[in-house]
């Protein structure tokens, strides 16, 4: 099945993979919050981070740029939490799309493509 965010197949033009970051407690050093002693304390659950690494593919540069523009629109114009679903149907609900980072170059062979890293964060 195609992956989606808020029901939109943002990354479907090319292969992409999902990975989830570590889970646990957010820790800070006591000294960093004004407590003059050694060690750390927990301040709550760590934010869940989901990373999508993949490659946008098009017939030419224009097709790839169109996809990047669409992704940027989701990232910047409609930055509200939504449902992220991977290829296998795994769901992350109420997660924010916070960052999209294309690689440093377009690759132009039989097709035009660019690698990217997209980051979603479940804000606490």
């Amino acid at each position, binding site marked *: 099945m195609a992956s989606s965010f808020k029901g939109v197949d943002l990354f479907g033009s*090319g*292969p992409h*993979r999902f990975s989830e970051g570590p889970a646990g407690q957010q820790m800070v050093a006591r000294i960093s919050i004004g407590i003059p002693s050694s060690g750390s304390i927990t301040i709550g659950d760590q934010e869940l981070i989901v990373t999508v690494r993949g490659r946008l*593919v098009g017939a030419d540069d224009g097709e790839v740029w169109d996809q990047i523009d669409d992704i940027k629109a989701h990232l910047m114009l409609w930055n509200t939490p939504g449902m992220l679903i991977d290829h296998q149907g795994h769901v992350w609900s109420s997660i924010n799309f916070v960052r999209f980072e294309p690689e440093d170059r377009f*690759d132009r*062979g*039989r097709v035009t*493509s660019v690698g990217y890293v997209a980051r979603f964060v479940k804000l606490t």
Partner: protein
Amino acid sequence: MLILNPDRVRFAGQAWPVVTAVMVDRSAERLVESWADMGPYAVLVDVAEQRVTIRVTLALSATDLPGPELGAQGLLEVWTSPTASAAQRVRVAGQAVITGVRHEMGARGVAASAAGAGMRVVTLAAVSDDGKLDPLFVASAEVGPD
């Protein structure tokens, strides 16, 4: 591409005598290979950057001091035909830069069997006009100078 005993070879307007072989190798300089979350196999493979290397083997029968200059760029032209006539003759041509010159003596017999005891292998990197066009083009040369 392999051309054995071409009719004529010219680089930067200068004829290279007694060429026994011209070999054109292509390799992926940057390979795009991507996998998805659906299974173990790559779903996208593409050659985003490629290298075209030409090796020209010349037979040498006498001392040859200067030799081709590394870094020199010019039009490499190779004419070849299946017979001694101009029928089906083709011309392979393209801009190229000399990246290596190597010499061997004829113990292998290849050079010794041609015109002398020495062999020179000139390696060239093909250069595209705009990065998109294949740096080498092949055209019929049935009509033209012998």
